[in-house]
């Protein structure tokens, strides 16, 4: 937890997102992930002398979408600049980025996760090209460079320092990711590097007027990693201050394996980027109509949807926020609700319970799971109709996912119908009574709660196809006669 009372924390995040265009930002090389090193490279993204960049129109369109969705002011005129630093994964030793005329600025993002609204202001959103990838060979004295990633379109979203805790940073990232996925402009897969995050963090005595000295944190590769790294850094800064030391403005690298941050460079060693306008690219003018038409074409965004889910479906805020977080989950919810409007809360429970469980187990997204909302809604109806038990439904859901079949067909072919025939149930019940003399004796001696155990035994014998309510009644009746 954030140091309570004594210190308060100030965090600003820089999120880099790879845009899901087909080709790179300034050349026609593919953006596919995971290809053999240097198989997706050309003179432009290799920065070979004489090669020239040409702007990918789709990348700009995607970026404007994000700017608009984050409530930013979209620049009427934007340009690219060169940012210089030497690193082997940066083929030209400058990155084409945006400096003083970014694509978008002054937006905001609302967090609503725990039902408490907080606004995080967005400072700027700009486009740039990604660098290649350095692989540090395990043995020997070499690093290897792969330029497949070089020139991938990147969008940098910079927040104002409005974030007050690692938990809130986590929430902010989740929300940014959610919005980008709603807009269908990025996979936001942190493991594949399509979403990356740097943080500026400082602490100060509660109530202090000026901000503390900040450090920059890099190399946080998972959402969870961001949370842990920020907490580590807060604790580190706190310890320094408590010992009477001073925080030094520096860049620190998070090492996930060692779970600590390491000094990368101090402010004195900071780069002099020598920005100047990129002469090989012309300026871009974005007119009002373009922005307005993009605005009009945006889908309903998570926050609006969350409000609607709470308002119209009367969902619990916590459930609603989990569901709207992923666009396809929320779509699934709404489609299912059309087929089964009777109890949408039940749908929400299933989605956040069993369905989410299946998604995690299979590492799949809702869209690729292959579960149709009509089928799911019909499954819920089968429970209501008394054809199957809730317990059977859990297994049936898995069968539906695996076979893609409709639930009624599966119930028939697998013989999953509830046993409602009393004769058949009586036989099972007799068997259970016979095999469990001790609990039966206990029941007779007034320990009536053992009935739950006996019901469970019947359920086991019938592989869950019996109706527990009926069995309960039958057992009580039968035992009363003993």
């Amino acid at each position, binding site marked *: 937890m954030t140091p309570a009372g004594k210190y308060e924390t100030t965090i600003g995040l820089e999120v880099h997102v790879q845009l899901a265009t087909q080709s790179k930002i300034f050349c026609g090389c593919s953006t596919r992930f995971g290809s053999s090193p240097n198989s997706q490279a050309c003179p432009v993204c290799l920065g070979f002398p*004489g*090669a020239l960049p040409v702007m990918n129109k789709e990348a700009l369109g995607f970026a404007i979408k994000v700017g608009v969705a984050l409530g930013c002011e979209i620049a009427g005129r934007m340009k690219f600049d060169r940012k210089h630093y030497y690193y082997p994964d940066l*083929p030209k*030793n400058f990155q084409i980025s945006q400096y003083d005329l970014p694509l978008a600025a002054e937006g905001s993002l609302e967090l609503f996760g725990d039902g408490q609204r907080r606004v995080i202001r967005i400072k700027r959103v700009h486009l740039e090209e990604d660098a290649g990838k350095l692989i540090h060979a395990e043995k020997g004295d070499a690093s290897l460079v792969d330029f497949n990633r070089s020139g991938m379109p990147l969008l940098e979203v910079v927040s104002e320092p409005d974030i007050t805790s690692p938990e809130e940073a986590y929430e902010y990232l989740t929300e940014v990711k959610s919005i980008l996925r709603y807009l269908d402009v990025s996979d936001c897969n942190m493991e594949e590097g399509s979403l990356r995050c740097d943080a500026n963090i400082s602490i100060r005595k509660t109530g202090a007027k000026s901000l503390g000295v900040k450090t920059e944190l890099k190399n946080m590769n998972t959402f969870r990693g961001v949370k842990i790294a920020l907490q580590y850094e807060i604790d580190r800064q706190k310890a320094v201050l408590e010992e009477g030391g001073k925080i030094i403005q520096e860049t620190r690298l998070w090492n996930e394996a060692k779970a600590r941050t390491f000094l990368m460079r101090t402010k004195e060693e900071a780069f002099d980027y020598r920005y100047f306008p990129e002469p090989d690219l012309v300026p871009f003018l974005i007119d009002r109509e373009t922005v307005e038409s993009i605005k009009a074409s945006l889908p309903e965004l998570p926050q609006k949807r969350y409000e609607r889910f709470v308002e119209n479906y009367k969902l619990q805020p916590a459930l609603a926020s989990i569901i709207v977080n992923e666009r396809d989950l929320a779509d699934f919810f709404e489609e299912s609700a059309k087929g089964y409007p009777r109890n949408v809360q039940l749908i929400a429970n299933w989605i956040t319970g069993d369905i989410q469980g299946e998604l995690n187990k299979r590492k799949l997204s809702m869209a690729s799971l292959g579960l149709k909302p009509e089928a799911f809604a019909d499954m819920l109806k089968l429970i209501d109709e008394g054809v199957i038990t809730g317990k059977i439904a859990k297994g049936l859901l898995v069968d539906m996912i695996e076979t893609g079949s409709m639930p009624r067909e599966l119930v028939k072919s697998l013989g999953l119908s509830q046993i409602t025939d009393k004769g058949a149930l009586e036989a099972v019940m007799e068997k259970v009574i016979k095999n469990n003399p001790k609990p039966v004796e206990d029941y007779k001696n007034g320990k009536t709660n053992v009935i739950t155990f006996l019901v469970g035994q019947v359920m086991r014998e019938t592989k869950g196809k019996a109706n527990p309510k009926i069995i309960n009644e039958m057992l009580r009746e039968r035992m009363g006669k003993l």
Partner: protein
Amino acid sequence: MAEGLYKLTACKIRDLIEKKEISVDDVVGALTERIQKTDKKLNALISLEKADLKSEVERVKQNKGGALYGVPVAIKDNICVDGRLTTCASNILEGFRPPYNATVIDKLREKGALICGRANMDEFAFGSSCETSCYGPTRNPWDTDMIPGGSSGGSASSVAADEAIAALGSDTGGSIRQPAALCGVVGMKPTYGRVSRYGLIAFASSLDQIGPITKDVSDCALLLNAISGYDPKDSTSVDIAVPDYTKSLKNDIKGMRIAIPKEYFVKGIDKEVKAAVLNGIKTLESLGAKCDEVSLPHTEYAVSTYYIIAPAEASSNLARFDGVQYGLRKKGKSLIDMYKDTRAKGFGSEAKRRVILGTYVLSSGYYDAYYLKALKVRTKLKEDFDKVFKDFACIVTPTSPTPAFKIGERIDDPLSMYLSDIFTIPANLTGIPGISIPCGFTKKNLPIGLQILAKPFNEETLIRTAYTFEENTDFHKRKPDI
């Protein structure tokens, strides 16, 4: 017939081949012999392998025809040719064979031209004397103690000495026009954006332009036809129709209004140069042009402006030469040692000087004072020209303030070297086209050039004016005795 073929112009050679009076082999044979005889003295052509020439001839023979069919063209060493050594006359690009063609190479070959050699140049085109090449200096065929001008000194020297029928150069501050003037040939810098820069190893991206160096104005029109036009691979090339420039080969400038800027005839200009250019202006008047003195008041700032913008862009463009992907690598203990030693060893003095100057003017705290200020003065220079072109079809000036000077004379005095570009730089800063044509000789038999400037995309005016002058004078017919 093969005797003396090397003396012919491109137009003439193409016509003779078309009429089947001579063959491509005859031309190449005559030229090869000529190169063997004269280039030991000139060092104008570098790094052309025999096998390359053979394959060029084979390739051309497969072409059916074309406006440049069978015409051997020398290519400045900063224009990329797929698989051929392209080094910018720098040690740092030792052994570099680009895996792609510059657009102009594809265009020339389409028209049936063949590459007969790589032309020497100042390292990375940094210079006005062709002395800074890692291959050693090129000499002026009119007097081999003299520089040929630069940076396209090899291109101009080889054409003047009949070692190439025509050549391509590049012009960032006068690098085509000044050596053309000093070698007594025709050189044109087209409007910025007229010719694709794709595959031209950049010196200063917002100033560079490829152009032809030829024996006469007709050849200039022919080559310009071949290389001009929009290229989707160059964002700064302009998508407007290319006229047939040979249609401007008209001996008629009656009534044309020509401006003579007074700032180009003051301090520092050589007496003989001044007299020859004034004489040239008289010739133009006698042919029906109306010449009036005008003022381009910001001319005095052009060199300063240029020596901020050009080195700044160059320092950025040359950052990529670091030994990672291609060219020279000096092994170092660490990465930073590798960078520093590679660049220390790979760059010559002038390259280092310009990179350091450019890095300085872009470094933190200096951008506004230097770079931004230069961009503003650039606007002023543009306004000067716009004003004159409201009333005048073209502007006539000397190309260079002096004729060729002695090798070694200015090599240790960068500032005096920089001032040799004083009359050519404004066209690069403002993007307008310019041509240099022979207009006289000094008493020591050194050529003098006359520069004509026109509005953007008005190369037709340049060709017509230059052609008319050429048709009525004999300067272009004189050949150096080598």
